[in-house]
């Protein structure tokens, strides 16, 4: 655990990519193989189960730190991280435990079979034998996620340097469902055959945005200058659903989401067609709600995501289908090396041979002769229930991760309104003890009605200025939330708007974020609820 705690600390202490890779390599070179796999699992989002309820952990930590519960809560708001708060509030310990990361995780897992009293004793003892940094990391294992500013790519790069295996192959080998208890380091570095694990998805190829925000709008000419001849590109609608990889191997089917969650059971409508696919087929596409042959907005699909049981009603109200746009494996062969056009031809052939045209759809190609023409077609995106247009170089292979060059997304400009900030709350992590989470309101007559929360979109310098304003213009405090003097106006961008019975304003926005700070606008000139409701299109 000392090595793992030091790894954490060292990674925190540099912002340089090369330095981070060096630190990761040092860690890999110095710990036992089982620790390597545990670290790999943690850094790629595979956290052990939580055997102890976090409220209990919190309560025991309050006891151990000997302060009133309210002061613990206040401290948490200052620190912005529960694991860190607990480690800071307990008495310093010299840290005389020499257990490895693997041993600690085994102990944590063993708590599942213990009684509550036994768990408490174990936890208090454990805290006492760890120093502050170890205790922080240990608490992270127990309670939180591991967001530490190290991407999967960096971990893979370090591992590639150590093992001599190429990064794309390694990325592939750590995809899908595995736990460090059943996947050894030896297997990881020796394995050569992708079919060894029939459920394993390929790493997703992700498109790069052509324009980031409405402010940096790109014209057809800009796009032409950047991408060259229109004829070298394939264009499709950018569908607004759940990106998924669908696998049929060895008579079994698997549906993976982009977040590497196995979601096979969530989409029973897709099972018949997947079962009908030949063995050794992997498809990449989007899952959407469909009705009467038309895609429905993402909000309809949203109603069934996250449900444990798919009731008959949900299946009737929000039936899904998939729009497939790529084929990664065919007849048991990894065909990612083939060109976009070649893979497309295989996909079309595959779909024609299967009799499920309503659930197994193919993303139709948009015909265009010039970038100007495509720019005009892009204007129809909203009517198509699409987010914009995808551009894929016809000669491109299917690559790993988000990279510039061959796949681009040209999204439509977000919808936007000018709104007044009325509440603020402190952020977490890097934004701890700074007011960074804001609630925005629009006018309803002479009242300001809150309609959206947004956390992102401002620069660090702007956040500091807003924080400075909030601390001097607080009207009331409700727990961690402050009511702020309505004065600052921001342009809020969002991807979609829907009716909502859960919100006071009667509407809910999709992906609200701050586009810019409107220093030029007085609060009286912010938009109205009526103008927002007009965007509902009803």
């Amino acid at each position: 655990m000392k090595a793992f705690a030091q790894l954490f600390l060292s990674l925190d202490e540099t912002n340089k990519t090369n330095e981070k890779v060096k630190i990761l390599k040092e860690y890999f070179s110095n710990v036992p193989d089982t620790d390597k796999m545990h670290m790999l699992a943690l850094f790629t989002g595979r956290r052990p189960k939580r055997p102890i309820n976090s409220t209990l952990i919190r309560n025991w930590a309050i006891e151990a730190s000997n302060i009133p519960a309210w002061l613990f809560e206040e401290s948490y708001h200052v620190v912005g991280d529960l694991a860190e708060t607990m480690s800071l509030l307990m008495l310093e310990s010299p840290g005389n435990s020499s257990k490895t990361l693997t041993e600690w995780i085994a102990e944590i897992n063993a708590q599942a079979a213990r009684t509550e009293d036994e768990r408490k004793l174990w936890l208090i003892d454990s805290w006492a034998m760890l120093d502050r940094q170890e205790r922080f990391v240990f608490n992270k294992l127990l309670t939180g996620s591991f967001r530490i500013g190290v991407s999967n790519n960096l971990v893979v790069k370090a591992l590639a340097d150590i093992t001599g295996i190429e990064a794309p192959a390694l990325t592939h080998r750590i995809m899908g469902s595995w736990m460090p208890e059943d996947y050894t380091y030896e297997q990881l570095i020796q394995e050569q055959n992708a079919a060894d694990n029939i459920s394993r998805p390929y790493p997703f190829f992700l498109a790069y945005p052509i324009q980031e925000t409405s402010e940096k709008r790109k014209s057809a000419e800009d796009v032409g200058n950047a991408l060259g001849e229109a004829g070298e590109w394939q264009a499709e609608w950018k569908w607004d659903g759940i990106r998924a990889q669908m696998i049929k191997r060895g008579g079994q089917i698997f549906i993976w989401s982009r977040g590497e969650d196995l979601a096979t059971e969530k989409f029973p409508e897709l099972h018949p067609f997947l079962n009908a696919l030949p063995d050794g087929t992997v498809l990449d596409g989007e899952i959407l709600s469909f009705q009467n042959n038309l895609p429905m907005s993402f909000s309809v699909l949203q109603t069934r995501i996250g449900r444990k049981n798919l009731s008959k009603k949900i299946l009737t109200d929000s039936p899904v289908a998939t729009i497939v746009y790529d084929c990664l494996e065919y007849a048991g062969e990894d065909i990612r090396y083939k060109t976009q056009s070649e893979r497309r031809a295989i996909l079309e052939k595959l779909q024609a041979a299967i009799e499920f045209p309503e659930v197994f759809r193919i993303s139709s190609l948009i015909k265009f002769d010039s970038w100007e023409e495509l720019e005009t077609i892009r204007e129809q995106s909203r009517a198509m229930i699409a987010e914009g247009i995808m551009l894929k170089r016809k000669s491109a292979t299917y690559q790993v991760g988000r990279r510039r060059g061959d796949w681009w997304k040209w999204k439509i400009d977000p919808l936007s309104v000018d709104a007044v900030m009325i509440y603020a709350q402190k952020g977490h992590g890097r934004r701890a003890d700074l007011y960074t989470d804001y609630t925005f309101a629009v006018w309803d007559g002479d009242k300001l009605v809150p309609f959206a929360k947004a956390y992102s979109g401002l620069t660090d310098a702007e956040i500091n200025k807003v924080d400075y304003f909030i601390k001097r213009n607080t009207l009331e405090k409700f727990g961690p939330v402050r009511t702020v003097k309505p004065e600052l106006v921001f342009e809020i961008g969002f991807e979609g708007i829907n009716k909502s019975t859960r919100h006071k304003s009667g509407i809910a926005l999709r992906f609200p974020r701050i586009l810019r700070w409107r220093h030029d606008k007085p609060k009286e000139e912010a938009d109205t609820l009526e103008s927002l409701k007009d965007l509902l299109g009803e």
Partner: protein
Amino acid sequence: MAKPLLEFTDRGIYCEQGKFYIDPWKPVDDAVITHAHADHAYFGHKNYLAHHLSREVMLYRLGDINLRTIEYGEIVTKNGVQISMFPAGHVIGSAQIRVEYKGVVWVVSGDYKTDDDGISTPFEPVKCHHFISECTFGMPVYSWKPQAEIFTEVNNWWRHNVENGVATVIVGYSLGKAQRILQNLDVDIGKVYTHGVIENTNEALRRNGVILNPTHRITAESSKEEVRKGIIIAPPSSVGTPWMRKFGPYSFGYCSGWMAIRGAKRRRAADRGFIMSDHADWNGLVSAIDATGCECVYLTHGYTASFTRYLNEIGFNAREVHTLYGGEEEDDASPQPSPKEREQEDNPSEVSPNEGDLEGATKGGII
């Protein structure tokens, strides 16, 4: 009820009987100053009273002011009110102000720390009836390690950088932290270089008779190769400026109490964060307040709301008061320095003496 000896006004802490203010932020006739930091020693008062060791720094920062200075323990009487100073341990020359009239004693802490930093006269608890205290770090998550441990880390980091051919830049504000760093560096490793605003403060202190380790002011002629073998002490406002970048590749360390929190540390994007503060930590504050034996404690800046509530729960009579001093939790994020200020710092020959070097004020400020 008789008027209290000290009251909180919109100009600062006021003594009506003695007709003077303590650390006022608007122009007044008579100002008693706890220490020379910009949020305590404002410009524009007619008469200033401060400690001897604040003399040269105040003259350097505030120009030609009418300043009288006294020693710790020396008593000045004004209209029957006895004013005296006691060490606050915050920075060189920092003082707690003791005010007594007809047997009633008030003490204004200014900013203070209870640990001995080896360069400021160590904090001395003063018995009083009413204690006006700061609480910049008045949350239990703040707990400082012994200074020696921190400087072992600093010196090891510096040595490591020299071995790797990387320049070392250590950041701390110019009055206090800079000298504390300077006096605790292992000068066998290399030479100590200083940014202009820090060297100006060092020179003021040397004029005041303070003996500091030798330093080398960085000028346009400084050799990059030589500087790389040493360590540069720079103010927070120089972080990320072209002035600092020209020493690249460098590793930059930030010295502040705020480094205790991972989020704050990551926000600063320092290569190394050293948890080092010139303010008392949680235990320091509670023990200092306890040692005064006061009947009532007033909290001026920091996490005042939570700290006041806690003190009341453990049996003190505590009150929150509003002032304009530095690191008030409500007031801790200063806006970025203006481009002009930055330009001046790029060109150390034209530095402005007031670079806003408060620990509290730079929190979240310069990133």
